[in-house]
Structure formats: C-alpha cells, structure tokens
C-alpha cells in the first residue's frame, strides 16, 4: 500500500515516541525505495570508485524525503529510521552471501586461514548493537548512521541534533566499545 500524503511524517513522530507499530509500518513503506538505493550503491562502476555511494545515498534520500512529503524538521528521524532499515537489509544480504565467489589464488590462503571479511565483520557488529543500545541508544544510532548508512560526521550530527564534536566523540566511544568487544573475543 502506498503512503498517503503526510503519512510518513506522522509515522516518524509516532516512532519518535517509541511506537513499535510505527516502526514496522515505516519499514514496509520505505524498504522498497531503500533497497533500490542500496542496490544502486552496489551497482556503481567497477571497483576503484569507492565511496561515491555516500553522495548517491544522500542525494537519493533528499529526493525520497521530498517525494514522500517528509517535513524538513523530521529529517533527522527520517535518517535514523532509514539507517535502521538499511541495517536490516544489508545484514540480511550479508548473511545470505556465500563465503566467497571469486577466488584468485593469492587470496585463497587468507580465506583458508580464516581472516574475516568486511561482511562477516558487519554481521558481528549487528549482533552487538542491541547490547550497545542498552548502554546508550544514541551510540547505536550513531553506528547505524555512520557505518550502515555512510553519512558524514556533519550529516549524522545534524540528523541526531548533536554538535559535531559530540557526535564525533560518541562515534569514537561506540567504535571503541565494539572494537573492544570483538577484540576480546577468542
């Protein structure tokens, strides 16, 4: 069912008050668009041009926000829910992906010796995020925005209504906590 005018803004406000149904409904409404955005990020030109996706995501988000009549002041929540949805989507994909698809001989030893690839790392991070949220829900949001969505510090600060330096410090704390948890695991 397509979103009626203003529905997303309304849902965002509900979501802000902790309404779980609102989150589910937003998920249903936004996932198709977000999937396309993600797909488009993966589909860029062949490796070598990295990180252009971030610019693409932002561009796409602003368009999406505009298309769905999201009020400007709700942009932060919009980003936050988008990051949550993107996280779920990406992690589902990472889980489905086989361990390797393309095997140049050089990399083979590393794979055999069990070094982690970025997607395995992402799955591990995902598992720890709820635990992190118990400590600080804000830090979880920072990780979602920075790691799963790829926002810049400025954008993430804006979305969470924090000063740039507070955002950076929270990002540091979240990273450190996660790093520590992963590092201490045998």
């Amino acid at each position: 069912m397509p979103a009626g005018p203003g529905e997303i803004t309304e849902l965002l406000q509900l979501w802000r008050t902790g309404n779980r149904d609102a989150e589910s409904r937003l998920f249903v409404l936004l996932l198709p668009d977000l999937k396309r955005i993600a797909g488009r990020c993966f589909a860029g030109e062949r490796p070598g041009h990295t990180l252009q996706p971030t610019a693409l995501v932002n561009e796409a988000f602003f368009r999406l926000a505009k298309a769905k009549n999201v009020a400007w002041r709700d942009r932060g929540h919009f980003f936050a829910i988008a990051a949550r949805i993107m996280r779920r989507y990406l992690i589902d994909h990472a889980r489905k992906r086989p361990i390797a698809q393309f095997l140049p001989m050089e990399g083979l030893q590393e794979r055999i010796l069990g070094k982690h690839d970025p997607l395995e790392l992402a799955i591990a991070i995902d598992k720890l995020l709820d635990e992190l949220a118990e400590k600080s829900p804000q830090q979880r949001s920072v990780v979602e925005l920075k790691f799963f969505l790829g926002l810049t510090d400025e954008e993430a600060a804006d979305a969470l209504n924090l000063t740039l330096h507070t955002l950076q410090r929270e990002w540091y704390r979240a990273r450190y906590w996660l790093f520590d948890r992963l590092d201490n695991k045998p």
Partner: protein
Amino acid sequence: MNCDADRDHRVMTILAAVLERPPAERRIHLQLLCHGDQELFREVVAMLDGEERMGNFLRQPLIAFRDFERPFEPGELISERFEIIREIGEGGMGVVYEAFDRKRAQRIAIKTAKPGFRRLLSPEVTSALKVRHQNICLVNEIHTTSTAQGEVDFLTMEFLDGQTLSSRLKTDGKIDQQEALEIARQLCAGIAEAHRSGVIHKDLKSANILLCRSDEGSLRVVITDFGLAADTALGSHDLGGTPKYIAPELWQGDKPSKSSDIYSLGVVLYEMLAGRPPFETAPFETSFASQPQPPSTLVKGLDPRWDRVVLPCLSPSPGKRPKDATQVIAVLEKPRFPKMAVMLALAALLVVAALPLALRKPGLKHLQSVNLRLAILPLETPVDLDAIGNGVLNDVADRLMSRQSNDPTLDVVSAAESLNNNVRSATQAKQTLDATHVLQTRRIQEGTKVIVKAALIDLRANTSLDEISLTYSPETISDWPTALAGMISRTFSLRGLVPTEQLSRSAIEPYLKGMSYLRRDQDRPCTLVAGPVPCFAFAIPFFQQAAKEDTHSPWPRARLVEALVQEYWGTRESRQREKAPPIREEAALILEEAEIRNKDSVPVLLAKGNLEFSNNQFDAALGEYKRVEQLEPRNVQAMLALAVIYQRQGLEREATAYYRKAIEAEPGFYDTYIRFGDFFYLRGRYSQAVSQYSKAAKANPNNSRSYWYLGSALMETAHDSEAMIALSKSLKLEENFAALLTKGAIKAYQKSDAEAMDSYRRALELYDQCYICLLNLADSSRRLGRLREARKFYRQGLQIAVENLNWQGDDDFMRAYVGYFKARLGNHEEGQEYIRQALSQARNNADVSRCAVLTYELLGRRDEALKVAAKTTPELLNQLDRHPDLADFRNDPRFRELKSKAQKGEQ
C-alpha cells in the same frame, strides 16, 4: 548538556590537532595543549591510544561494499537454454555474462537486472529494444527466470568482442583525431537512428560504448544499453545516468530527452579527444556557469574544428545544442578537398585495406617490438561455415591479447583476420602474414560429443610445439577456448593469467575444505599413529564433490590429482603397494581432465609438477613450478616444490633461497619450517633443524608431527632432556610410532637398551612396517646379548628395507640401511657393496654417512669409516662420538683429531 558539549568540543579539537602530528611527537604536543589539566590529558591520551589501536575499524561504511550477490554462476543453465560461460562485466543495472544459446547455437551476452532492479523493463523499454542498427547492440529478447534470490529479469543480446571506450581511454589516455572521427561518426549514426525511433539512451557514457571489429576487420562502434537506463530509485523524476555525463537540466528535474543524450555525447567526445572530462568538479555544482576549455587548447595539433563539434553539445541550455546527432559532426564531414582528391583518398584507402594485416588496433607501436607472431588459422572443417567455432577461435585471440601484461613478445592474428587475408594454411600464414607460429584447429562432431584437435606449430623449425585432442560433452563444450588459450599461453610462457579463473559458488566450500587437508592445516585427523598416513584420505572426497559441483573449473580436478599423488606416496611405505599403479593411472587421467580445461592454470601446473616429481621426472616438474612462479610469484606451494627439487639435485644454495622465500611469503605456514628443517636434518646440520622445527611447533602447536621432528633434532644435538619434553608433547597430542621410536633411540644413546626396547616395541605395534624400529630393536637386543632375537629383528627389517628399495629404486638412504642390515646378518660383501653405492649416490645425506660408518666399523674397515666421517658435519661427529656401537672407533686418535678439527672449524 551544554557543559558536555563544551567538553566534547575541547577534547575533540585537541585530539584532532594532536592526530595531525607524527606519532612520536603526539604526547608532548598534547601536554602543551592541555595546560596542565591532568584530567583532560588523560581523556585525550586514552582516545589517542584507542585510535591508534583501532586504526580504520568501521571507517568504511558497509554500504560502500559491492558484490553482494550474483544472479547466475558460470556453468549454470538458464531457462533450459542459455549456458552461462563466464562473467564479463558488471554495469549499473546488473551483471553481464557471456553465454551460449543452445537453441540458436550462438554465443550471446546476457545482461541481468539485479534484484531490486526488477520491473525496470517497462513497455517503453521494450520498444527501445526493437531498434536495429549496426552501431547499436542488438537485443534479442527479455526473459525472466527464478533464482534463489527471487525472480531475475535478463536480456539476451548479441555477443560483442571488444573493449569499452572507457577502458581504452584508461590505457591509452586519449584517442588520436583520425580514429576519434571514425568513432564519432559511428556514434552519431547510432544515436540518430535511435532518436528517429523515439528512443532516448538516458545513460550514454564511454563505459556503454564498445569498440569492436566488424566481420571485415574494420572498426565497429557499438552503443550498448540503449534505453535501458534504469528508472532507478525514485520513479521518473530520478536520474538514471552517471553523474558526469548528465545534462545540467536533468539536475533541475527535467526529463531525459534527445538533447540530454546529445549533451552526454559531447562529454564522451570531449573525453575521447582531451583524455579528461570537460568538468572536473562534482556534478551537482557544475555545468551551469563554467565553460569547458576548448579541446584544441588542450591537445596539440587537434583540428580546431573539433571545438565546434564538442562545445555546442555541452551547452548548458538544451536549445543551443545540435538538434540532431547527424548534425554534430557535420562540420568535420564537410569536404575540404575537391572531388578528385576524395577519389584519390578513397583509392589510397583501398590500397591500405588490401594490405595484409591492415594495421590493427594495438598499432604500430606494438608490431615493432614483436618478434613472434602467431596466426590462428580458421577451423579446418568445414571452412567458414563453422561460425561458432571461428567465433570461439576469435575469442581465444582476444583472451590472449587482452591479458594484463606488458610483454610484447607475441602478436596474435585472430582467425577472422587470417580469413580476411585469405589465410587458411600454415604456408599462407608464413607467406602472407609473416607468421612464425600457427594454431591449427579441427572440430569433429561425434554424436553429442565434440572432439577438438589443435596443434601449435613453429613455422621456423617446422615442428609441432604442442598438440591436444580434447573431447567435450555438451556440458563442457564451452571450455575449449579456455583450453586453447591456456595451451598457447603455456607454450609461450605469456605473462598474466588467461583468463581469470572462477570457481562456482557451490564448489567453493568443499574445495576449501579439501585444501585445508591438502595443506595439512588441520592436523588432527592426519595422523602419525599408524604410519605416515597423509591427509589425502580426507581431502579426496571434498575435491570429488567440488569437481561434481563445478564441471568447468580445472581447480578441483587439479587438487584431486595432488591428493592422489599424496596417496601414492603413502603406498610406498605400506603394504598396499599393488594399489600404487592404479592410483597413478587415476591421477594421470584426472590430470588430463584438468588439462583439457586449462593447462596453464596454476593448480593444474602444480598438480602436473607433483605427478612428474613422483615419477622422478624432476626436470619436467621444475618446468611446471617455474611456470607457476612466473604466473604467481608469491605461490608458496611452488616455492616449496622448487626448493625440494633443487635439494634433490644437490643445488643447496638455490634450495635454501626458495625455502627462505616461502617463509617470507607466508610466515605463519608451519609446513615450510618442517621442510626447511628436514633440509638441515638430512644434511646433519641438526641445530639449524632444531631452530626451524621449533618455529613449526610455534606456528602450529596442535601438531604432533612438529614436536616429533623437534624431538628428533634435539636428540641429534644431544639435548636429550629437551628432546624428551618435545616428544612427550607429541605423544600427548596423539600416541604415534615416530615419537616412540625417537624416545627409544634417546634411551639407547643413554645405554638403557632394555627401556629403549619397550619404546620400540610399542612403536612397532602401532606401525609394523617401521624398519628403523626393527633395526634399533635388533641393535639393542644384540647389545643386551640376545643374539637370536637380534637376528630375527635384523631379518625382518632387511625384508622391509629391501621391499622399499625395490619399490623406490633411487632412494640412497634406503640402500644404506639395506647394506647395514646385510652386514649385520653376515653378508659382508653385499653389505659393503650397498654402502658403497649409497655413498656414491647420496649427496650429504647424514643418515647414509651414519650407516656407512657403522657398517665399515662392523666390517673392521676403520680407514673407510674414517674417510666417511671426515666428510660429515661436526654435529654428526658428535653423535658418532656417543653412539653405543662405536666405543672403539671414538678412541681412535684419527677420529679425535677429526673432532677437534671440526670443533675448531666451528669456532
């Protein structure tokens, strides 16, 4: 909150300032910035340490990772009709594959829509597919198929052999104006035709333009993806294109139009001439105000009329651009010469066309440096009619020419070019094309099977360099271009892999499992308990499964050969010798299967080398491993194999160099240390062996083998108690005959023969073929005065050693053991003869020297014994000095002299 924000501001500002400094200065600088605020200092120091520890952790957003999924895999049959041959690229919309259309018996390209891009093929797109023009990629049909990831739409289209303009620009920088004009002309023709049919490209860019060769050998420019630009993210208002090619009005919300295509064309032309895009800045901000620099000011000698072609296309206002693609290059098409001159020019063109090998794309630069030229002849039967066959041969040429390399040693003339020049035979190739080599190929159809016979002939010497006869089933038919390319790249030792190989997804897991056994990374099951059973038994079923999962890849088959060769080695020391010949045969057959897929593939070369080595064809094996080294300079397996071969050939310096290289390439791999340790051990350089074996034990502490080796080497350096510790560790990991044998030997050196015998007996219970156990048992019983028992053990040991010798033939140390056994059993003449032969064959083998000294001493030939001793290492002299059977010998003043000399030499 405010207070926190202030604090964050201070901390983060200081941290940023400190991080700009070189690491060594950071703390001092930090102290300065904190002005004695200890708490602040501590906070920032902690973060500084944290940042240094974490490095780039989580710095790259997940969304930037690509390659999440692949709709199809090589070898898959889609819609019961299209056989996926290989992945050839990835575009904005999805993955592009080369495939074989069984129904039409044609090579085609398949372009998939990625999941999430479904339903992009709107009715409007469908009409776009109907445009038929020489310069537009012909799309056959739209299909839908279901995969594990859901429904996937895909297009089948003509297969184009060529290079994209963008990759050409990446290698060559820019394109000279003459060729650029031809490209521009064809681009304009294609775009004009599509526009006439009302189809807009929407995503014209150099990556969507292919430079191919037509059947006549001339340049054919093909625009791909016409009208396919995804209406991606957000409905019709979204931009489907690639930023730098997108016309400015589209950023403001206009819909794509003919005029926006013309703008993109302008960007392509500009890039082609100038080697860089017209605007350097980010697409969001540009294009409105700034004017691009005229190309003629950037490129020396460029016809200034090009400015009048390119700049109007790039005009920010659509109305000012050329209305029609045919108008774009009109200014360049106006004849500059009177009609007569055009005629002359045409005539000149015809002459050029008639020249053999009309200077092909890689150009003069390439031809000049070439000293070998291989002409691929068209298929012999039936000439010309076999379109697929000749297509495949062209593919072979392309794969060879497109390999990433800069060695200009070989020029390849494709089958199409040979045909264009009326070259069908070796003689014609020599005369017309000045070829030094030809590839002759025949294709014979036998029912559903296809037999491909190919010969690579050196025309200068009139010899055949390599010949293959390959039988393919319908499942493997798509493999023969790879096989032919492999045969050629192997023969000419071309650099760069042709082609990049893939393993299908379902084969990866069993393949990797097999590999971990083959490499003995998982040692637990590869046990020493009952003799040296290697890991092959565990690896074989995994490789068999992988081979079943991926019928195209040579890899699982090649690895299976390696595992079988290991099994073959295993039979040498067991009672199952009758199994050995069939194992070798099986290995040879499977190797053939791997080779028909690609004989220039690294695993195939390794397997071949392995098999040759097991057959004592050391020079041949050396050739395979050297080739691997050329293809993959850091391949540890090849390094180790080369080290072992050089070791066998007595080239110790080369061997050592390769061991060191292997350690450097993969310092964590324990097996390298074991082999390097063996190298020293066999040469009687025991303390160096100890150092390598301890590294092995450190790298893989759960491996009983490492500790056994370490224990043996420690024993030989007379570090008995340390040796016992290592051996106990080995035995704790698993009860194994080898550690028990060595434990016994230590007891024997300590003159506790009774205790030693207990150990040997237990070892023998575990592995009854252990002739050294029998030898040691016999020696100990003899020293205990139990002569009958001793004789019995000597006889049993001799029997096994003789069998081994018959089996192995060239094993010098086995010959020495036989000699010792014979001498002990009273057969002095023969014993001496065996020892003499072993000494003449062995190079620096410490075990042979030890046997020889013991045997000569037993036969009362002290002079000979001393001669042998004089040539051994100081460490072996030390061992002889404490050997329980050499009490007389060590008191000989000549031996004492040898020892003191050796000691002085060591110091």
